[in-house]
């Protein structure tokens, strides 16, 4: 066997060849900027003129009530989206893939379109639907039940209904898509044998589908944790900008923009970003260890 051939067959070399692009991209486009970002969070940055300020930004952050509001909002939003955006799309995906549903293609397409519509337009459409004017769709709905119109986007719980609906409108189809492709990886013979054993639909879901779709579920949870914590666009769309009444729609990334980029305080912005990163990492590591996703690697 020639040397080249040996290399081609080597199971020792292959994994390193496969992951090489990732390692390179990690070093060049991630590690370097991230380290710069960490350094920046300890600096005041003013057009090429940088001064080291130590922990000042972090100390200020924990006294900043807007920042605390932003963190609480983001965490709350993350939990609510996890509660809503995992089970519902999963059930819909199972239902969609069952033999029961007719005209599947049509529903899938319709559910997918919202994720494609331009942010500007969908934000405007939702703002109008939830407008406090009497004629807005939501207020007409209230009128139908003999309720007085309300200013949806000015109080927290009504505004959050709008926010969560917007989130579900945009992302249900996408999350369903993840689950649908996860379902495809399940060996159909398992259902056939379950049928032979006389399993009910629920038993099949509980004992076949749920365990086997776990990798996909973990995936969706992991991306949803970060997406939930880093939510900004939905809030920006709904309030046509980064300011909401009493900051009911302020999120961590929104705050990062507000104090960091709109005010040119990039050092402070980096500190805000670091806090977001730490929260997201902690939640995800705990979640991945708990679900045993990391374990497989170590064994």
């Amino acid at each position, binding site marked *: 066997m020639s040397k080249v051939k040996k290399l*081609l*067959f080597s199971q020792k070399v292959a*994994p390193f*060849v*496969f*992951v090489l*692009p*990732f390692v390179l*991209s*990690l070093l060049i*486009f*991630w590690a370097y*900027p991230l380290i*710069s970002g960490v350094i*920046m969070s300890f600096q005041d940055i003013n057009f090429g003129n940088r001064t080291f300020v130590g922990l000042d930004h972090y100390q200020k952050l924990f006294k900043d009530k807007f920042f605390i509001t932003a963190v609480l909002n983001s965490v709350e939003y993350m939990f609510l989206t996890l509660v809503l955006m995992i089970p519902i799309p999963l059930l819909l995906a*199972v*239902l969609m893939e*069952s*033999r*029961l*549903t*007719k005209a599947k293609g049509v*529903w*899938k*397409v319709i*559910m*997918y*379109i*919202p994720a494609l519509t*331009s942010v*500007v*337009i*969908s934000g405007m*459409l939702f703002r*109008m*639907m939830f407008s406090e004017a009497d004629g*807005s769709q939501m207020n007409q709905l209230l009128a139908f039940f003999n309720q007085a119109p309300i200013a949806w986007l000015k109080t927290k719980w009504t505004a959050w209904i709008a926010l969560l609906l917007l989130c579900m*409108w945009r992302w249900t*189809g*996408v999350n369903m898509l993840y689950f649908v*492709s996860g379902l*495809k*990886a*399940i060996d*159909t*013979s398992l259902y056939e044998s379950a*049928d032979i054993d006389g399993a009910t*639909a629920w038993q099949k879901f509980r004992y076949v589908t749920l365990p086997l779709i776990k*990798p996909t579920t973990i*995936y969706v949870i992991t991306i949803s944790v*970060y997406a939930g914590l880093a939510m900004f666009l939905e809030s920006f769309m709904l309030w046509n900008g980064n300011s909401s009444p009493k900051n009911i729609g302020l999120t961590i*990334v929104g705050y990062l923009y507000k104090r960091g980029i709109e005010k040119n305080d990039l050092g402070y*912005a980096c500190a805000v970003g*670091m806090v977001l*990163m730490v929260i997201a*990492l902690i939640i*995800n*590591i705990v979640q*991945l260890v708990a679900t045993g996703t*990391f374990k497989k690697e170590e064994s």
Partner: protein
Amino acid sequence: MAANTASPKTMESNHKVASVVATGIFVILCIFIAFPLVAGLLASFRPGRELVQNGLAINWDFSTMTLDNYKYLFGVGGGNSKVDSAKYFMWYKNSLVLTILTVILTLLVCYFVAYGLTMYKFRLQGFLFFMVIATMCVPFEILMLPLYQEVTTLGLIDKMAGVILPGLCGASTIFFFRQYMQSLPKELLDAARIDGCTEYGISVRIMMPITKPAFASMAILCAMGSWNNMLWPLLVFRDTSKFTLQIGLNTLLTPYGNNYDLLIAGSMFGIIPILLIYLIFQRYLIDGMTAGAVKG
């Protein structure tokens, strides 16, 4: 997979009821989902100020509908056009090219990275997987300035490569492939090795075909991400002729008044190519394991 197990007769009628219920759920859901879209679509046939003033009322009065907005878009609106239609189609083309290139390159790279991470046991494996998760948890905003300086130094500014390269190893795509491959049987690899396949041959000829559903869904999602992405392309591109559709459409919104007419028509029309990508790839979601390719 959700059939009943009672006697054949009740089974059949139960099945019918269940089918109506299941389909009904999607019908109702889709009516709600489609409502804003239909309203937006109808609004695109009206002068922008009507939407601004009347809000989002579904108005089936076809007599007030015009094709004016689309005429502006296609440049047949005469001297009245507020935006150069040539510009619109340039943005459109740029977005399309950028999206297609991004999808093809990202999927290929991420597939192989995930393959390496999942199919072998090697040192650093756990660490690298941890890094995949870690990259998913860092807000882009803090990387923005250093990355911009870096891309400038590398001479990639104003180049498509500058937009695509930093996002090429998309952590979420790698992670998805990894999760998907974990549920596939590894025995296949050993069988192929006995048949004399190289490690790289296996990854292409054996695993790739059965990873098709994952490819399809990642293609759809990558395309969506790239199509909607604006922040980074905007920082990299300097030449107006390279702008993407999202950048272009957003220039229609200004503190000095919004060009609602074109915005609505332009956005509605902008859904089409990305929807086509979806339609094409979703057929591969039907294949996969059910084809029985793996059972051997």
